[in-house]
């Protein structure tokens, strides 16, 4: 981490960048927040990069691109896909960003730690970016506990897209491939269900939705200035799930709007306060796109046309695909 801080200080000092976009140390062991740093002192004192820095900073660069001068932004390998996609859609300015690709060994989800019955967390060790801790030691009001690093990882890290940064000016730190699950296993499980089981499954999950819009607002693909669900221009504005239809409508349309653009960064599932596995929608589209039109990874580059803005003459027919398995 010190290497990252030192490099940031250098770039700040030599005027390459006007500010640094990184993570600010939290007041609890697991809640650093995305933040700007403008001084070396602030960086030295308050910058943190550890296992809890799951937040994808790409989307902050939409606003960052409007600021005077360059912003140094730290992107993990998976975040770089989002950044590329944002470049493709002209939502961020490549020239305004100085990208340091930082290493990642899997990000942690405090909810997963708490789900193991651990409460009253006072400190956590093993989450540091240095070292290769396989276990987290959690000091709590109710005694010390341990959790395997793997068991505390975010869902997305189990299906990690890889260690490579897709775009960067320089790279610092080693990454670890944490993939130990099949990306589409969950989707396939649902696909194999009977229609009534599928319906019951999603009904149960989506009934938890409180329409806080966290999934949408954190999503780098949901970068609309005004979402159709907020806009009064159509009859589509919704503020609450007044009926169970609306939560489905919202999530289906949202997934459709990001289809072919979603990089599968997993932020939606990470931030959902009700723990809804929202990535299952996006991943279904990704799986279908891969199967119907050939493998496609949004954000792997900043130029190619997406699968929904291109076609081939021999594409599969809609009627046929709905019933395939």
């Amino acid at each position, binding site marked *: 981490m010190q290497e990252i801080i030192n490099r940031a200080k250098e770039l700040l000092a030599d005027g390459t960048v006007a500010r640094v976009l990184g993570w600010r140390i939290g007041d609890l062991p697991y809640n650093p927040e995305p933040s700007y740093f403008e001084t070396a002192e602030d960086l030295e004192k308050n910058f943190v990069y550890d296992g809890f820095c799951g937040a994808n900073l790409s989307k902050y660069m939409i606003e960052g691109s409007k600021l005077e001068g360059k912003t140094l932004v730290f992107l993990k390998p998976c975040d770089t896909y989002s950044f590329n996609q944002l470049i493709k859609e002209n939502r961020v300015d490549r020239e305004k960003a100085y990208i340091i690709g930082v290493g990642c060994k899997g990000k942690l989800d405090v909810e997963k730690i708490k789900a193991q019955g651990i409460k009253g967390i006072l400190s956590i060790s093993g989450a540091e970016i240095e070292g290769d801790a396989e276990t987290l030691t959690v000091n709590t009001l109710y005694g010390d506990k341990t959790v395997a690093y793997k068991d505390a990882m975010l869902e997305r890290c189990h299906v990690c897209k890889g260690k490579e940064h897709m775009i960067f000016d320089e790279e610092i730190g080693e990454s670890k491939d944490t993939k130990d699950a099949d990306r589409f296993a969950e989707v396939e499980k649902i696909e194999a269900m009977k*229609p009534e089981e599928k319906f019951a499954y999603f009904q149960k999950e989506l009934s938890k939705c409180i329409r806080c819009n966290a999934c949408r607002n954190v999503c780098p693909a949901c970068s609309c200035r005004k979402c159709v669900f907020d806009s009064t221009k159509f009859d589509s504005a919704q503020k609450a799930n007044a009926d*169970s*239809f609306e939560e489905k409508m919202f999530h*289906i349309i949202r997934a*459709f709007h990001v289809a072919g653009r979603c990089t599968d960064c997993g932020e939606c599932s990470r931030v959902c306060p009700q723990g809804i596995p929202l990535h299952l929608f996006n991943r279904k589209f990704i799986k*279908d796109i891969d199967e119907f039109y050939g493998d496609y990874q949004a954000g792997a580059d900043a130029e190619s046309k997406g699968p929904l803005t291109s076609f081939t*003459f021999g594409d599969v027919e*809609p009627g046929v695909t709905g019933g395939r398995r």
Partner: protein
Amino acid sequence: MSITANEEFRPKIVAFCCNWCSYAGADLAGSSRLTYPADVKIIRVPCSCRVNPMFILRAFEKGADGVIMCGCHPGDCHYSTGNYYARRRMALLFSMLDYIGVEHGRTRVEWVSAAEGVKFSQTMNEFVAKITSLGKNVRLEDLRCRK
């Protein structure tokens, strides 16, 4: 307004037809007096690529039991490429609806040319039969819209 006194299920079906092929195909079905059930109501759109998934979900929300989209055959689009985009969009949308448990068969895409009055009427007959067998759409309706 009640049409028939008996309790027989009459599905509500919305058909989106592109102006250049399928709407003309429906016209031809009409002028050839090829019947299909009155449950089908056609909405004219310039091209199948004008059909927003939102329209389809909206129809279900408001109580439609089936939605069908018709366009020019791939390669014959009046705007050259519109139906290719529509085809991708609908392939993905329908697959998603299937995935969340909406009965497969409530949605359909059919390419109908201006000369295919017979196909249009056949398709509609089949589709109405299919929807009738599936029964009322309860998985995607907004209960507030029930009378």
